[in-house]
């Protein structure tokens, strides 16, 4: 489609071809162990999908179990769980709701590598000691410039803290604020020696909308002079036009090229934690599982550690902290203290409540609350639970009322269709009546498609007046992204008006 003589077209094709050839294969055909110490994305997905298949099979059963609120597990045998999810018995330490005690556990600390002490005695690097090279790129709207500062001579020197930078355009400073970003940074002075450069990273989200900004070079002041290297180039706007917001350039402190953080080890550092947390459950149902702890050496549970159960539901993270039920561990040492015998798995029953409302897939995590944060994670496939509070529980709708609700949803869809066909505009997150539309379309997003994804009854007064909670899928002309990240839940109050409905949209009930 591009004119064959366009050299940029040829250059993009050539580079993109190499980029595609070099890219790793898709995760679903990737082998396990994509990242050490983590389940690979592919295996996680397979697990999630098979859990979903399980959910589809047992939905009928969960409704029966869901009515039983006596705390029995909602996940009967036969869902393919391995033996680790066996019911508490003689060989499983029973669960108890013991409050967390936040015990002080002994720890040992290994320093970071390289050790900042190596740089401590060296002189500060002078401008003439260093040569700057940059690399950089841009992904998802964030530009980055990585600066590598290599030693020119043979005498090692030291870089410390944040660089002293000025952003320039044709030699003149440009007005872009700098912001220090020390998150996760190497904690100490950096030794610069042969083969051991110092590095730093500058990143910028280009969120400048009042006027384009150019930054062709960056000057870094050092003792005895300065080094100048390539800047970010031109800015473009990702913010709200007219807001004049100026995104700062984030600057890291000087870092070694590669380094390992200081490590804090507790006696639990070598503990193996096992569990199968890929479970199919019903919303708000009791949730039971078994954690297996195996220590390679005899490990005395004194003081007794805490643990956390974390669920990431749609409405946020739910965390509970308890003390481990150490007293009930059957193994005692010669002083009568509970311990995990070397190489012997000890199983602990766990109990909580499903946080999500379903249907959804959520992450479930279990973590021992020690410096090493040993833990496991899995995926909960949550099916919608039994009816909870509200009028629908007390009096399920009759067939006539259900038809009314169905017509109301059709009316909402028809409203969206009209809105799209008539080329009406979306202003902020409000729905605007046709005759209240702004006179000009300039700068306003237009709906390219709108769809009712699902509707739940939020409140019911009568068939003439009720409120629906509606999830909408809205797309805007020219934007590949769904409006508002695809999260468009609205409360629509429906009032019967002659033969039709009056619809009032709101973002809360």
């Amino acid at each position, binding site marked *: *489609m591009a004119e064959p003589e*366009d*050299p*940029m077209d040829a*250059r*993009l094709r050539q*580079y993109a071809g190499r*980029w595609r*050839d*070099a*890219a*790793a*294969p*898709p*995760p*679903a*055909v990737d082998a396990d162990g994509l*990242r050490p110490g983590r389940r690979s994305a592919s295996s996680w*997905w397979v697990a999630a*999908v098979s859990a979903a298949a399980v959910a*589809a099979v047992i939905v009928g059963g969960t409704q029966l179990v869901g009515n039983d609120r006596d705390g029995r597990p909602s996940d009967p045998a036969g869902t393919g769980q391995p033996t680790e999810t066996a019911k508490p018995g003689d060989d499983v330490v029973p669960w108890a709701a013991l409050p967390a005690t936040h015990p002080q556990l002994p720890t040992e600390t290994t320093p970071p590598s390289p050790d900042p002490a190596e740089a401590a005695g060296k002189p500060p690097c002078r401008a003439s000691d260093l040569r700057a090279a940059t*690399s950089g*790129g*841009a*992904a*998802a*709207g*964030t*530009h980055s410039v990585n600066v*590598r500062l290599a030693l020119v001579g043979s005498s090692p020197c030291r870089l410390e803290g944040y660089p002293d930078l000025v952003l320039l355009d044709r030699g003149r400073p440009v007005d872009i604020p700098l912001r220090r970003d020390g998150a*996760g940074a190497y904690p100490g002075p950096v030794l610069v020696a042969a083969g051991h450069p110092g590095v730093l990273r500058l990143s910028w989200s*280009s969120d400048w909308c009042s006027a384009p900004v150019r930054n062709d070079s960056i000057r870094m002041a050092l003792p005895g002079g300065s080094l100048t290297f390539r800047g970010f180039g*031109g800015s*473009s706007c990702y913010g709200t036009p007219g807001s004049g917001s100026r995104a700062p350039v984030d600057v*890291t402190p000087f870092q070694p*090229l590669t380094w390992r953080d200081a490590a804090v080890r507790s006696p639990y550092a070598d503990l193996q934690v096992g569990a199968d947390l890929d479970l199919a459950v019903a919303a708000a149902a009791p949730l039971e599982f078994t954690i297996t702890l195996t220590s390679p050496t005899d490990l005395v549970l004194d003081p007794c550690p805490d643990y956390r159960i974390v669920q990431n539901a749609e409405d946020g993270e739910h965390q509970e902290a308890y003390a481990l039920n150490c007293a009930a561990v059957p193994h005692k040492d010669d002083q009568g203290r509970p311990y995990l015998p070397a190489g012997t798995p000890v199983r602990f029953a766990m109990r909580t409540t499903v946080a999500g409302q379903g249907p959804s*897939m959520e992450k479930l995590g279990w973590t021992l609350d020690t410096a090493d944060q040993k833990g496991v994670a899995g995926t909960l496939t949550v099916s919608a639970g039994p*009816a909870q509070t509200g009028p*629908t529980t007390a009096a*399920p709708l009759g067939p006539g009322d259900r038809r009314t*609700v*169905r017509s109301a*949803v*059709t009316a*909402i869809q028809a409203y969206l269709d009209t809105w799209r066909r008539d080329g009406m505009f979306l202003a902020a997150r409000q729905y605007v009546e046709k005759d209240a539309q702004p006179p000009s379309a300039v700068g306003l997003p237009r709906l390219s*498609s709108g*769809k*009712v*994804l699902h*509707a*739940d009854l939020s409140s019911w007064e009568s068939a003439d007046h009720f409120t629906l909670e509606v999830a909408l*899928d809205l*797309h805007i002309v*020219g*934007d*590949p*992204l*769904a409006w508002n*990240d*695809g999260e468009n839940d609205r409360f629509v109050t429906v009032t019967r008006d002659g033969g039709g409905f009056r619809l009032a949209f709101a973002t809360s009930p």
Partner: protein
Amino acid sequence: MEAVLLGEGVTVTDGSARDFTDWVEPHLPAMTRFAGRLLPGPDRDDLVQDALVRAWRRWATYDEGRGAPLPWLLAIVADQGRRGRLRSRPAALAWSEHGGAVELTPADVDLERALGALTRRQRTAVDLYYFVDLDVATIAAIMGCAPGTVKATLSQARARLRELVGGDDG
């Protein structure tokens, strides 16, 4: 809470995971490539992962009448990519992480930086056309505009890139 029904043209399917896997598999390479343009390194696979989970959850709402599966899936990748960017920022200093294992020449680095200076629409069009290797009609479906608009956007993007990398073809 009682799920009442879905909107017009939407049906609830109990679509088995197996069907979904078969349905989505042919589109995984394109989803992965697009994700690789949005997020570097291992974040790419997490993005594909999140997009697949979201796609599975919304699968019942996919409407063949509205378009082919690929644009629908890539729009989800784009959407999730933006969420990922808002949510997380790399904590560790990454020296040469450009979204793939490709050996970057200095000219490539200039080109990547120039790509980052495009508007989001231009960038999306270039990523989808050159890097994901899609045709203009599919890109138009993803971006919700006419094929002619995609062509114009690509042409504007190339003009801007020429300006940014200094005019020669490196």
